[in-house]
């Protein structure tokens, strides 16, 4: 798993040499600074939605990838990441809300993919009903922040909908609810072997979706197929301060910024959690289970408890993201949480590399960009070329992700940024490096591996 693919080294020996040369000394600093400045300036010059902006936006996000890949000092990487995520991206978002929305959705899906990666990548349990936990979180806030809840507790009708500021309490509540659901589903099914588990979780996901579609009778809980609209949004508690600072933004833009930073916060926390867990006794037990269950038990790893922990961690974060999603979209309905969405998240994990945290982040970013931005763009370009609407690429997500899953499993099962335990191990001693920021590769390791093979 840890080896870089041999074919590329055959073809691009010179490319590797160039990479090694550019990855030494002052060069990476110069490169990344130039690249960031050029792309940022180009992007900010014309923020209107267009093909060029689409391309530039992807290049813009590429700053993060380059920063991660290059041999830079950790402090420098941190500074770039902070500038990028804290200022650059949100500022651009105020210029063009479409891209802000995409950035927020990317964040949501990165968290989901990281959560699924815990079960699929770390422990090796294929969970095909993962989106059910997301749905649970979304419906939790949707029901209690609207009049829906009055139907469930007719006697307490005056209490509902709950005040919008309770949103934050419900985020915590979703964390608990998600974890409990994970435990509830997990405790009976975790004894099953891998492929049965996959089908049962798929069934569970479908059951949740069918329930969401049908629980408008006898008591209207979910409002059925119509979905729930006018979901409550948390109050913009920071609005006065922002206004005082002289920032002139509409309420919609402020909400966008709010959700962006909220997602970023949860994402940062999530990355910290999964990174730290993966380098702890719990994470090692997970990987040991994935590698050899019998040996893991014999070494004293409590199988069921560790699997349940993994399920609960993944589920709780999915549920939290569900509440944020519901509040952000203001409207949810059952089709949002169908199997295709679960498989979408799975493709993110497979594409990026099962078990690899940076890989999964990259995979989720790519798939979300593809879904929300690139495919619609491609569709528009194609319609100009008079391609019949039957071939609209946005309509063929299943084909695309199906192909992606097949090709990845056959040609690159470890993903595009594979898990590299050796590197983690080398850095394992540097416990105090802030885990929110991805770890720096040891100088010139990567090109070396490529050239040797």
């Amino acid at each position: 798993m840890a080896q870089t693919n041999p074919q590329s080294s055959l073809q691009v020996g010179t490319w590797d040499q160039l990479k090694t040369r550019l990855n030494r000394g002052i060069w990476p600093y110069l490169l990344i600074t130039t690249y960031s400045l050029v792309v940022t300036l180009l992007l900010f010059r014309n923020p209107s939605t267009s093909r060029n902006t689409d391309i530039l936006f992807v290049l813009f996000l590429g700053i993060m990838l380059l920063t991660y890949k290059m041999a830079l000092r950790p402090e420098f990487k941190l500074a770039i990441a902070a500038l990028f995520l804290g200022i650059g991206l949100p500022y651009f978002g105020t210029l063009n809300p479409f891209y802000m929305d995409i950035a927020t959705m990317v964040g949501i899906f990165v968290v989901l993919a990281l959560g699924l990666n815990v079960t699929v990548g770390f422990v090796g349990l294929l969970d095909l009903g993962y989106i059910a936990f997301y749905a649970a979180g979304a419906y939790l806030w949707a029901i209690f922040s609207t009049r829906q809840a009055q139907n469930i507790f007719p006697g307490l009708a005056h209490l509902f909908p709950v005040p919008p500021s309770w949103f934050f309490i419900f985020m915590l509540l979703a964390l608990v609810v998600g974890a409990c659901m994970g435990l509830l589903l997990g405790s009976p099914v975790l004894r099953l072997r891998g492929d049965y588990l996959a089908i049962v979780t798929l069934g569970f996901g479908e059951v949740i979706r069918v329930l969401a579609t049908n629980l408008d009778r006898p008591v209207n809980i979910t409002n059925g197929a119509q979905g729930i609209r006018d979901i409550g949004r948390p109050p913009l508690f920071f609005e006065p301060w922002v206004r005082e600072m002289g920032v002139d933004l509409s309420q919609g833009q402020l909400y966008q910024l709010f959700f962006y930073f909220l997602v970023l916060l949860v994402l940062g926390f999530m990355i910290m959690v999964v990174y730290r867990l993966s380098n702890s006794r719990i994470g090692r037990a997970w990987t040991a289970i994935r590698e050899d269950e019998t040996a893991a038990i014999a070494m004293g790893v409590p199988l069921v408890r560790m699997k349940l922990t993994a399920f609960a961690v993944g589920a709780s974060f999915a549920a939290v993201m569900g509440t944020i999603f519901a509040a952000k979209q203001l409207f949810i309905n059952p089709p949002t949480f169908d199997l295709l969405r679960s498989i979408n998240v799975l493709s993110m994990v497979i594409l990026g590399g099962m078990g690899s945290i940076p890989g999964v982040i990259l995979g989720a970013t790519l798939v979300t960009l593809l879904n929300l931005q690139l495919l619609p763009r491609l569709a528009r370009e194609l319609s100009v070329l008079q391609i019949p609407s039957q071939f609209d690429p946005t309509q063929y997500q299943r084909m695309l992700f199906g192909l992606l899953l097949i090709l990845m499993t056959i040609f690159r099962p470890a993903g595009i940024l594979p898990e590299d335990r050796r590197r983690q191990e080398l850095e394992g001693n540097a416990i105090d490096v802030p885990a929110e920021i991805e770890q720096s590769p040891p100088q010139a390791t990567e090109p070396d591996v490529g050239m040797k093979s």
Partner: protein
Amino acid sequence: MVVQATTGSGHLVGQRSIKTILLEIFGPLLQVLMFVLGSATILSLIVILFAFVLRGSRTDIDLLQGTLIILPQVIIDGMVRGFLFATIALGYTMVYGVLEFINFAHGEIFMVGAFVGAGFGLSLAQQRMLADFPPLLFVVLAILLGMIVSGVLAMLTERIAYRPLRNAPRLVPLISAIGMSLFLQDLVRMIALATGMGFNVRFQTPPLGGSLPLGQIPIGGDRFASFSIDSRALIFIVAAIIMLIGLNYLINVTRLGKAIRAVAQDRATASLMGINVNRIIALTFLIGGALGGAAGVLFGIRVGTINPYVGFLPGLKAFTAAVLGGIGNITGAMVGGIVLGFLEAFVASYLSLFTRGQFAGANYADIAAFSILILILIFRPSGLLGEATTQKV
């Protein structure tokens, strides 16, 4: 595994008496028919009991009478669903038997069969030959076409998406199969849209006749419940039974069947004994796919309208059926299909009757199917007919 059970007596075919051969072909079928009767009786008794108990709660209609009126139709519906799941489940179970791998795309193989049949009907209609075409010949030809295309497609999917992954960790080919399932759904949709068939395709057939009245039963007073069987349902059941007989012959009597059983039991040893394992696995996919394709055509004839996503749910339920019967076990798959079909038909019809339509039955039938799956996997993962230890220890 039943496929293992007979290998001990695996002498040359010629040396076996006609009686054993007949027993091996029709024995499983008898078992299936017993389960048909058993499931129908038990479930009928249960709903009648419910009707008795709940009778007092309803003043608007006589619940018992209502129950009895629809009962024969529900049983026929159960049989059709049962044979549908059984024929699809065979594909899952055979592949699982030889590869220990859930061919997630099998539901799509089934769907492709339905589309081939529909395409056949459509092209006949375009030639203005459909109305005069002999109905029986149409059915046979459509099934054969569906079997060929689906079987070859199943073989292709194995060659492309599964064989390269044969020695990978177990989850990897499953992921590839999920990908294949999605890919096929959209591929068929693309083809259907591009050829102008549209998303929802009407399955055109020559006139196949209406319902055949079967009789009437008195249900108290001067009222009678007349019940009949739809000719399409009848075609379905008959064709399914013929296919099951054929499969039993193939698996239990022929050399190919013996090779399949040998590969299922121990791939490595089978290859040492001179069996070309890759060929046998490909043929297993071919047979399973062909059965799935035939089921697809029959399903299309029965329901009338199909779309590219129509294979997913039956596929999943057929997998449930295969697990219910004991995955890897061929008779088990048929039995599991029958039991699941009956359960679903009863839940779909009676849940809403008993709850005054508060719970729409059709949706909860899906939930019932999945709940059954989850419960079986937890409490009896070896299934109804599986041995206590399914794992190859």
